[in-house]
């Protein structure tokens, strides 16, 4: 059972490595959006420090959104998805593998680059640590929930915009607790509670969302 998950992850990672430009462009989208805010708001350090958690998290949501349409679209187009659905393994497990692979190429790089962007916003060392941890713990939930939206909009015209309409409202809890963890650390309250809730959401999303997206994929493949 575990084998199917790991082999799907290995396959998707190999495909992603053959098209590294996709990963890098989503990452630079994140960097550019975050860098736009000081230009729009002004360089006052106190204000930027206050805005940093929200800005970084909103940019992370948008950057995750960018790579979601490709989660199933390529496999759908060349017929791989149909073969996967016909395989004896449960489609939910296969989707779990794809969600984890998606996180490895979209969420993980965001978490690794976020502290550098945080320095631009003059965040303290502790806040940078919590920010990285929050993005590490929260982005798997984004990949999981996003997979439902990607499966529902598979093959539809205007899929990308539609996907953001469906998925962004569902991302709100992750945004609140992700940015809240950093806020709470900055204000001295401690972000452990937020991080725990974020982890709970991630586990719930990784556990349940693949099965909902598998149901949606079956509808799309009918």
């Amino acid at each position, binding site marked *: 059972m575990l084998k199917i998950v790991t082999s799907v992850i290995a396959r998707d990672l190999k495909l992603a490595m053959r098209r590294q430009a996709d990963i890098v462009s989503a990452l630079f989208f994140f960097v550019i959006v975050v860098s736009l805010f000081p230009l729009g708001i002004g360089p006052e350090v106190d204000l930027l420090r206050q805005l940093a958690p929200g800005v970084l998290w909103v940019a992370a949501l948008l950057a995750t959104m960018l790579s979601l349409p490709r989660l199933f679209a390529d496999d759908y187009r060349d017929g791989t998805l149909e073969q996967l659905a016909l395989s004896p393994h449960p489609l939910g497990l296969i989707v779990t593998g794809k969600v984890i692979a998606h996180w490895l190429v979209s969420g993980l790089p965001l978490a690794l680059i976020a502290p550098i962007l945080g320095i631009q916003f003059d965040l303290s060392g502790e806040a940078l640590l919590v920010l990285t941890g929050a993005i590490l713990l929260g982005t798997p939930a984004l990949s999981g929930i996003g997979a439902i939206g990607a499966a529902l909009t598979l093959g539809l*015209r205007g899929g990308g915009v*539609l996907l953001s309409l*469906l998925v962004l*409202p569902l991302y*709100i*809890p992750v945004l609140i607790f992700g940015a809240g963890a950093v806020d709470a650390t900055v204000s001295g309250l401690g972000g452990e509670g937020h991080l725990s809730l974020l982890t709970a959401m991630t586990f719930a999303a990784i556990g349940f969302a693949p099965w909902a997206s598998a149901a*949606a994929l079956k509808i799309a493949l009918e």
Partner: protein
Amino acid sequence: MNDRFNLYRFASPATFYPLAGRLIPWFIAAGILFGLAGLYIGMLVAPTDFQQGEGYRIIFIHVPTSWMSMFIYLVMAFWAAIGLAFNTRLSGMMAQALAPTGALMAFLSLWTGALWGKPMWGTWWVWDARLTSELILLFLYIGYMALVAAIDDARRADKAGGILLLVGVVNIPIIYFSVKWWNTLHQGSSVNLTKSAMAEVMLWGMLLMALAFWMYSIAVALARVRTLMLERERHTDWVRKTLVGDEQ
């Protein structure tokens, strides 16, 4: 002719179409009656609030629309679950027919809330937990309608919309509580409705108005589901019979 037989009978569009047509006038009549009674009590009988003056009377629209906006989402999710579990044609159509009314109720609730907030709180909008979650509910309605509109195949639209509704209904409590906690942590505008024990007349007015909106929603949803049925089943015999029969 036992009860069970009847239920299955009306699960078919061919038999539900005339039934809906017969029911609509009754729901419209009930809606008008409840509405008139509710407005009479709300506008003329209920006393002026000693704190809020006459402006509070907007709650006779505001509270029922908020209730309906939440209730309709639950009803849609119920139909979605039935449709996915039993693969019935009518369930998806019911969910689709309800969606615009639900979105309208959410919008009216936000709008009347803003109209009430300006004189009472001195601002059109605050990032209060209830307001924010009502706004997110409106987004969920819009997402559902956009998804259903984007799918040409009616059966796929029903099922995909159904999954989205079920995912949404699971998420609503999570969203509500996270927004609530976010609001208390940020210590935003500390607005809370100091609910003094509401006068009984006001409560009656509100309940009557809620019933009026409820009847209105049913009537409109039935009218909309009738057109949906005609559109989807346009190649069938019963539609041809119904339409030709109407022309004669």
